[in-house]
């Protein structure tokens, strides 16, 4: 029995080898590096950013130079600093939005799938009705009603993704609840909520984790889209989507740096999330590979 025990570091090492050992694992590694990079940017923005992102620090529309690596925008603000600070809004809204969608969608899916009957019908109908909307359009509609603000934007993103969780969970539960071990648990006298929490939920969780990481990339882009359209965070708070919008007006005056750098920030963040989720996906659920 003593052989089973390992040092914590050793166990972490084993886990890391499982995670990153294969080809897809290396992708996961790259993705997680990008993710970690952005998280560090967001957390330590005040220490990393060279200037205050909302202060005028140079001339309007200065091209990239030694002082301003990414150039300045039309109000003379340092774009590098704005991109760094922008990761805060982008990450917090996409995490919050996905978290809210998860917290609402998963329990509803569990209950709907396990209980079935008319409750299932009604919930599925509502969720399907939400699901048929194109994501961004629905988010715009909700955001327009709720108004700007981190929480409101997160909610409008959550509205888009709740049905995804609901559907994935509900269908998985419907399959798992007929498994023999669920029946066996009932035969041994397990309570309903115990069956849902201890037997069904852990068995359907892996598929949700995959959706979760994929949604992060989508949510990030939805957020950028909303703020590009002016439905996001109120200026002057630095935000990639908003900067993209203000930069876009000066492309004709050859100020390409106004859209390239915020745009690249969005692209790399979305790419990081996607690569990461791809890796997690195949790691947790090899059967999904065939399905896609």
């Amino acid at each position, binding site marked *: 029995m003593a052989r089973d025990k390992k040092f914590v570091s050793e166990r972490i090492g084993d886990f890391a080898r499982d995670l990153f050992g294969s080809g897809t694992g290396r992708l996961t590694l790259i993705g997680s590096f990008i993710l970690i990079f952005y998280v560090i940017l967001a957390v330590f923005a005040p220490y990393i950013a060279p200037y205050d992102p909302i202060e005028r620090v140079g001339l309007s529309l200065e091209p990239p130079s030694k002082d301003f690596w990414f150039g300045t925008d039309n109000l003379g603000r340092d774009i590098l600093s704005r991109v760094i600070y922008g990761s805060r809004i982008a990450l917090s809204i996409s995490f919050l939005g996905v978290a809210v969608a998860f917290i609402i969608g998963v329990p509803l899916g569990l209950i709907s799938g396990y209980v079935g009957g008319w409750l299932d019908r009604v919930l599925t109908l509502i969720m399907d009705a939400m699901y048929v909307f194109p994501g961004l359009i629905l988010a715009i509609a909700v955001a327009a009603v709720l108004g700007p603000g981190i929480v409101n934007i997160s909610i409008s993103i959550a509205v888009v993704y709740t049905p995804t969780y609901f559907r994935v969970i509900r269908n998985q539960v419907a399959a798992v609840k007929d498994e023999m071990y669920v029946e066996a648990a009932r*035969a041994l006298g397990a309570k309903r909520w115990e069956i849902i929490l201890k037997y069904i939920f852990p068995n359907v969780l892996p598929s949700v984790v995959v959706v979760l990481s994929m949604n992060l990339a989508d949510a990030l882009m939805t957020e950028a889209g909303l703020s590009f359209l002016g439905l996001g965070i109120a200026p002057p708070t630095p935000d990639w989507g908003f900067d993209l919008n203000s930069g876009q007006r000066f492309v004709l005056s050859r100020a390409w740096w106004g859209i390239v750098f915020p745009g690249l920030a969005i692209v790399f963040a979305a790419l990081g999330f996607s690569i990461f989720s791809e890796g997690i996906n195949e790691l947790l659920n090899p059967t999904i590979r065939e399905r896609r």
Partner: protein
Amino acid sequence: MAKNEGEAVLRAENLKIHYKTKKSYVKAVDGIDLTLRKGETIGIVGESGCGKSTFGQGILKLLPQKTKYYGKLLVRDVDVTPLRENDMRKVRGKVVGMIFQDPMTSLNPITKVEKLFYETLEEHNPGISFNESREVTAQILQKVGIEPRRMREYPFQFSGGMRQRVMIALALVLNPDIIVADEPTTSLDVIVQAQILNLLDELRQSYNASIILITHDLGVVAEMADRIAVMYAGHIVEQNEKEKIYYEPKHPYTKLLLKSIPNTNPKDLELTFIPGSPPSLVNPPIGCRFASRCPYKMSICDEKEPPVVEIDGGMVKCWLYTQGSDNQ
């Protein structure tokens, strides 16, 4: 095992279990009488779809919610047919344990064996500590022939036979009076089958439990059961001691069923079977349900349901044995 002795731990009186489908009811179990005594093993045999598994799961009321139960099903003198889910839970595991057909899928794949036992024990003895539960688990695993230290493993790390042992241990850990074994050895190879059956029988003796053994395998019941009940289309058509059933079958269905056991004689290549198929259980025929396949069919068989005739220490539900009791 002597008959008609010992207290009855389970008694079905005209028990009917009807499944609800979209428009109708499937009368999967349609009026059966059965008594299980302490320490006894009853084998329930019959072909697929005859209602034997429905009966087994019906004892624990594990069937879909809209299933209707009629008649009486006394488990230790308590009629369980009107009981609701909450009261039923006290019966499950504690009074009646169940062993399922497929050990490969009947254990939660993501839970360690020790935790499976802990959850079951805790359900019925709230407040039991994990260590206490592990002690109990170690003892019971030892009894079913699994090294106690393997309780720290996951179900998928066990072979099929081992898993069925775990399943048996899990069904026995609360020391139930009745064990319902629903095709416990169907998915195992013959060697492991024999081991599992011997194990079950030993445990039945040491725990003084009663077993309801549901199977389509007449070899399995021959090995284990004291009495055999033959089911056909929702009815018990014949019930008697094992030897009587094997050597002097009464009901035509039993006779044919015994003939269709495949053997290993290479010269006997012909597989015997009973032509035809069982009647629909949505609208079962008025008369004898076996009439359409029966070689001894008489005119009355199509008209009236045969009575239960007490004969030779057992019972048979067939017009052939009513001799002069002239019901016509």
